[in-house]
């Protein structure tokens, strides 16, 4: 609801006073939230960032960004985030397209399939993947029984397992923005192209795909950023062998008790997250917003 344009006619003083009083009380309504977020979000996070500089030098950042061991962790984290984003896009786009173009009934069915995992505990899903992907898991049993493989495939406790689990968690975040952008697409454009005799493939490549790119962009950014901070999936499906940055931070705090180093790692992760998000919002520009 946009405010009435104040500049049209000078308001009578009484109305102006009432309006500014209303605005003051609206601002006051935000105060409890501001207090909570300041005390339990902004302050602790800034305090943590401060810890990384606590001995007055940049040594923990040098360690975090200079030592091969830790660079490897960043590399793994970004690589997995990239693979997961790509896979989520390749799987999510057809789903979004299907949901946007099919009948009402199938849209409803499809939405249940996409939303249901979103409402399910990530631990339940991760556990299920361990059952499915393990050495004696259901997938391997099936492949062996069908004679497709001779030995169980290594699907769990490695990068592949982590990627599968993460893609499963993140697909909905890719589908929803692409679906919205496809829904916004003006159907008369497609009809016009059809009427002019364009083949379906060309209609898709020349009209539908370019016009849904804002949704694709939003989904890609969202999934990538969320991937960077993942903890539960790599911790469980990686079996201690796939160290992503969130897992490393947890280890540094809980096992090594190295707070300044954990803080430096957290600062790097935070800066990367905010930078990617900020750049995305800027390049989306006018009115475009990264959901959710």
């Amino acid at each position, binding site marked *: *609801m946009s*405010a009435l344009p104040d500049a049209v006619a000078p308001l009578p003083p009484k109305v102006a006073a009432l309006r500014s009083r*209303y*605005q003051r*009380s*609206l601002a*006051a*309504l*935000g105060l*409890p*939230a*501001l207090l*909570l*977020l300041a005390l*339990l*979000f902004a*302050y*602790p*996070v800034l*305090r*943590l960032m401060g*810890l990384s500089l606590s001995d007055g030098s940049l040594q923990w950042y040098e360690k975090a960004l200079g030592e091969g061991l830790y660079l490897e962790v960043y590399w793994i984290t970004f690589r997995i985030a990239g693979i997961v984003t790509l896979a989520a896009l390749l799987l999510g786009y057809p789903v979004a397209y*299907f949901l*946007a*173009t*099919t*009948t009402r009934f199938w849209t409803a069915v499809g939405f249940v*399939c*996409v*939303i*249901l995992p979103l*409402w*399910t*505990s*990530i*631990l*339940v*899903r991760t*556990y*299920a*993947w361990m*059952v*499915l992907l393990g050495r004696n898991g259901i997938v391997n049993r099936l492949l062996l029984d069908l004679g497709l493989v001779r030995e169980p495939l290594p699907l769990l406790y490695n990068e592949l397992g982590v990627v599968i689990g993460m893609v499963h968690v993140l*697909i909905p975040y890719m589908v929803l923005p692409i679906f*919205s952008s496809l*829904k*916004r697409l003006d*159907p008369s454009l*497609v009809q016009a192209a059809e009427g002019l005799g364009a083949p*379906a493939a060309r209609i898709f490549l020349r009209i539908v795909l370019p016009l849904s790119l804002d949704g694709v962009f939003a989904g890609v950014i969202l999934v990538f950023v969320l991937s*960077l*901070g993942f903890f539960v999936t790599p911790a*469980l499906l990686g079996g201690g062998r796939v160290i992503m940055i969130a897992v490393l931070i*947890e280890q540094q*705090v809980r096992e090594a008790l190295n*707070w300044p180093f954990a803080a430096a790692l*957290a600062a790097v992760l*935070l800066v990367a*997250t905010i930078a990617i998000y900020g750049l995305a919002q800027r390049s989306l520009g006018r009115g475009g917003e990264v959901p*959710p």
Partner: protein
Amino acid sequence: MRGTSRARRRRARPGRILLGAVCALIFAFLVLPLVIVFPLSVSSAPYLEFPPPGFSWRWYENYFGDPVWIAATLRSLKIATAAMLLSLLIGTPLAFSLVRGRYPGRVVLERLAAAPMIVPAIILSVAVYGLFAKLKLIGAWYGIALAHTVLALPFVVIVLGAGLKGFDESLEAAALGLGASRWQAVWRVTLPQIRPSLVSAAVLAFITSFDELVVAMFLAGSEMTLPKKMFDNIRMEIDPTIAAVSVLQILLITLAVLLSQRFGHGTFDMHERESP
């Protein structure tokens, strides 16, 4: 891009059939992990065996007979209820403030309120853990509830904000014109009108807290929450008790969503509402 006649014509095309088949596979991929825990939870085998060799309720008995599981569940319910109430109590005024306010600093507040959704949970967890360790709040259930409130707040604000934007403000103005105070108008006119959003926000906040692991892992100490107990169990020994817990959790969440559908007029799905 809807149009039944066109959709019908398209379905007949080979490309359309291929798309349907691919999507069916992806839907199966999405739903499979949720479905698989049901047969496992009633398996008689102590180890993971599929298909289950026989039927048994023993994993459910295990769960209900184990005071640690029950205590963790009750603690999670308590925390989630508190976080839900608190995030509504703080988030509803905030949503009003952000949607209708034109005061300086509004944009900053809006960004700040959305930030917990973007900042990785591990960072918030470690940061709050450092603070709470100092304040000797580790292990306190209300400490976890407070931190969960921070996490739930962005969802509450998004859902309620969408509801408020869709609300016709002239109804409130009419109540004011008829002599109601602002508070009365909001309480008797506006809030009942956006009840679907309130219900959705409440369910979303509850689930956010009830499923949350990372914050609870740091702040809970020895006072386990349900996700923390599940995490430890998955790490130590995978026995089908966890499958039984998973089934119960899926059923609980489904119930919550159905209730929100019933009382919230099916608005739990934000994106459906967005599209015309």
